[in-house]
């Protein structure tokens, strides 16, 4: 399992993760090593085995649609890096 530079760059775009050139090189080597070790998984016979997403078998957890107190807007916005009035300020999506 060898991860090429191009594949690493493709993943960084999917993850919206900026990396330096040196990090790209290091990660393509480290991820290749790790994945090579994990190829052992392919040896497990999983014919007709369903996947497990979580380990306690809770299903369709519902609760009543009741009005309850929540954090006030001022508190929700308290850690916003940029805000305008009662809103999060974001950079322009369309230039």
């Amino acid at each position, binding site marked *: 399992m060898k*991860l090429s530079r191009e*594949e*690493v760059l*493709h*993943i*960084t775009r*999917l*993850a*919206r*993760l*900026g*990396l*330096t050139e040196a*990090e790209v090189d290091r*990660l393509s080597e*480290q*991820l290749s*090593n*790790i*994945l090579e*070790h*994990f190829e*052992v*998984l*392919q040896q*497990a016979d*999983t014919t007709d*085995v*369903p*996947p*497990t*997403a*979580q*380990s*306690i078998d*809770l299903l369709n*957890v519902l*609760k009543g649609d009741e009005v309850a107190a929540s*954090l006030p807007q001022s*508190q*929700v916005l*308290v*850690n*916003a*890096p*940029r805000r305008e009035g009662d809103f*999060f300020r*974001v*950079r*322009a*999506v369309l*230039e």
Partner: protein
Amino acid sequence: MTTNHNRLTIHEAHKLLKSKELSSVELTKATLERIHNLEPKVHAFTTITDELALRQAQKADEFIAAGNSNPLTGIPVLVKDNMCTKGILTTCSSKMLENFVPPYDATVVERLNGRGAVIIGKSNMDEFAMGSSTENSALFTTHNPWELSRVPGGSSGGSAAAVAAGEAIYALGSDTGGSIRQPAGFCSVTGLKPTYGRVSRYGLVAFASSLDQIGPLTQDVTDCALVLNAIAGYDTRDSTSAPQPTPDYTQCLTADIKGLKIGVPKEYFVEGIQPEVAAAIRAAITRLEELGASIEWEVSLAHTPYALAVYYIIAPSEASANLARYDGVKYGFSYSDTKNMWQAMEKTREHGFGAEVKRRIMLGTYALSAGYYDAWYLKAQKVRTLIRREFDQAFTKYDALITPTSPTVPFKIGEKMDDPLQMYLSDVCTIPVNIAGLPAISIPAGFADGLPIGMQIIGKPFAEETILKIAYAFQQATDWHMRKPNI
């Protein structure tokens, strides 16, 4: 007089507080004094909350004077820095959250506060709980009080080191692949990972949501049961919280383990295990046999060798989704030197996350990406089923399983930092438990050249009482948990 207070357990301190031989303010002052003396060596705290602690201690004393105390009232506790504490920094030991002050409390913190606990600070950890040594903390590395050149384990390394050093009477940690048990083993304290869903995850900064679980790190099993009593139970704010009723976990502490059936899975005693660790665990199991448990020494859990790969596909996959929220818009670090939205997001994440977090986001994003999903993520989820089934099967014959907590004693700071895979292997004994969502406890079981060895006792889902009982019986018969580092 004051210095002796630092080695009190919860149940000992409670007695003294209740009989008014000691006040919470005295106890808290003694603890804070010790923290300030030892922190230059141990580095277990990201934040020390002196003022808040003394305020809470004063309130606790009033509570006690009015006859309203419960076992945790007035007793200092350290909270891992990935649990939200209203008005107190919650950094996850990450640059991304270095200035993050949550506007609300995690459910566990709310429950401790409701019982009059005294919060003395927040503990250092591997960034976003990803790691096994605290070396991935963006702030600093915590040192093992048993030998300062060694790691305390991780990711709850600050919590474990502080309890071992007497800087906290007990602490909370979180455990996704061993992050309570492995540091508990490395620091010779008692650490419990409850069944998945037993303790609410509301307000715990998410790492891998199908695996994360909060639990106590304490000086003995009785304390562990007391803390579990306070934090366990259903919470409407966590949809994966378990609706099963919670017993009084102290009721099972009887030391009578006659007839209990314990299995020893042989796959945990192979490849890479330090001979002294294997010998200490076998000796500890023999002690349990002498106490009346019936031991099956050759149990096989044949899928164990797949567990590491399953974990390091599933946990990073979930992490890559959970950590998508750090976009520099809502809270946390925000890169400001650009007008372009996508670039701002990428730069925020480039500068806000450390090397291990980036590695896991990349690994998880890859395993979930088009063309690789079936071969990696789905395959890992299927093997996860096989591992669960194998545990289910074993638990039709045995009440508990016992293994080492880690294959080795604590390693040197720096020793594994250049080789991520070697670091991952230090969790090889604890990871299968999270994959199956089981409860497990690590208790002190010996030393090799003065370095701690932990024993892991694994139980059936929601059978915390069985493993607490076995651990209690062991601690009644041995004194490993009474030994403290000379610091």
